[in-house]
């Protein structure tokens, strides 16, 4: 199990800056993910985790810095380019399409694939989630929140990603379902797929991860192996920091 950053990195993010309009959210983020590695991205609310994922997948323009994926520069790429290159982003909030069926949701995820391969890929993605495979003809809106989250992950898997980025897949899920989704992360890891996991549930996340980055106020404040001791305490320190402004109380 690699503790330090691996030799060959699949994804390389350097000096990344991004934001919304006048609001700069990311202030020079550096991050590396190796092939076959599961990396957790932790951090308090408003730290910029979602912004980081969005700017890596092309959903949000990059203001400065670079995103290199397998030697290919993705700094100006569209989400479609990123997905074609094998960098797939499952956005937060299980936003599946409610008007169309489960199978059609997956079919759309494979929009760019050759027609012949689509159904095989869909079956492959569904094989991870038997509980939604049974509901393939139901409308996306008829699924429960947890099933919608599984569908969203399955959508990402249709592309056979080399790096799958999951943004809070456990939000709003019952503990059993959280284990199901995180279990899939372990399965993917076993098959050599890299995963970047943004999560609130630290312990469960660390259990499936190789390495951890912590983001606070748009900067990486901590990089460590997931199994290093004393991590929760170091995280708390990194978030709340002792280098905060001194007390203002009169």
């Amino acid at each position, binding site marked *: 199990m690699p503790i330090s950053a691996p030799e060959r990195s699949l994804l390389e993010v350097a000096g990344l800056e991004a934001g919304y309009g006048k609001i700069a959210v990311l202030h020079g983020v550096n991050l590396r993910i190796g092939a076959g590695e599961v990396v957790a991205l932790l951090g308090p609310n408003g730290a910029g985790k979602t912004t980081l994922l969005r700017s890596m997948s092309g*959903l949000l323009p990059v203001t400065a810095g670079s995103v290199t994926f397998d030697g290919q520069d993705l700094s100006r790429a569209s989400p479609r380019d990123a997905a074609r290159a094998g960098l797939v982003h499952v956005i937060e909030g299980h936003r599946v399409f409610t008007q169309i069926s489960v199978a059609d949701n997956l079919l759309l995820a494979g929009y760019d694939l050759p027609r012949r391969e689509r159904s095989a890929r869909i079956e492959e993605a569904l094989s991870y989630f038997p509980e939604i495979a049974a509901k393939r003809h139901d409308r996306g809106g008829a699924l429960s929140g947890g099933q919608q989250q599984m569908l969203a992950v399955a959508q990402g898997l249709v592309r056979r990603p080399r790096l799958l980025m999951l943004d809070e897949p456990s939000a709003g899920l019952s503990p059993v379902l959280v284990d199901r989704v995180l279990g899939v992360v372990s399965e993917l890891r076993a098959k050599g797929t890299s995963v970047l996991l943004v999560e609130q549930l630290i312990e469960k996340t660390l259990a499936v991860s190789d390495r951890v980055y912590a983001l606070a106020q748009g900067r990486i404040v901590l990089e460590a192996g997931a199994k290093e001791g004393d991590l929760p305490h170091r995280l708390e320190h990194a978030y709340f920091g002792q280098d905060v402004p001194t007390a203002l109380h009169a």
Partner: protein
Amino acid sequence: MLASIIASGLAVGAVYALIGITYNTMFATSRVMSFTAGQLGMLGGVFGSMFMLRLGLPVLPALALTLICCALIGVVTEIVAVRPVLKSLEQHLYVLTTLALALLIQHTTAMEWSTEPQPFPRLVNFGSGIWDEKYWLPVVVCIATIIGLEYLYRRTLVGRAFVAIAEDNFAARALGLPERNLRMASYALAGAIGALAGFAGGQLLLAFFANGSLLNFYGFIPVALGGLGNNRGAVIGGFVLGLFQQAANFMVGGIFSSVAVFTLFIIVLLAAPQGMFGAQAARRV
């Protein structure tokens, strides 16, 4: 008299419904209401008349050319008037850009085609009186269009992609759908639907540049009645409007019938701003 009210009411209603669907088709992928919808309908009549009567083409090639021309104008709408203002949708600049483009189209037609209504030929030589093809072609085309669209949206991948983009543009982009190409395709489709409306209704409305603003207004009413983006609502709204308008025409005369339609429109809008089949808009804080 009742029969002819119904025949003409259904006929113009079908044209209005098709223009309403044109609005909806553009709206679905872009959240933009475009003033060019009515102009596309007008051009369907003008191009049809031009290809068949001025250039002497047979019906089918003329129809194909008309559809292609209007689809191209749809794409131009997307590139010139929609895409540049999509970033700031909440400023509603599209109202101005599409209005400007609609006026450019209308005025060019007036100057280069004719300022007078020009005849539109018979297409299939069917029926007379209230069974005249001019009343029933629009109805048939409207029904065929709605069936075709249902097939597209339910059975084809592109159609499902349209549905997906309409529901959640951001998620569709994240999934790697070619959102911009699909939007252009939907504008081309809208152009073709508008062209169909004008072509099928050509014998009724003639090839006249001023039909553009007229269809803009009367085609918008079904959308307002049926709720934005709701095609079935637009068809029902279109037929209701057509029948109401023709009935008012016979009873109170042409000019006051438009007053009646306008009054009805305002009352319905104020009473149900979301339309009768529409959903409440979300809060914006």
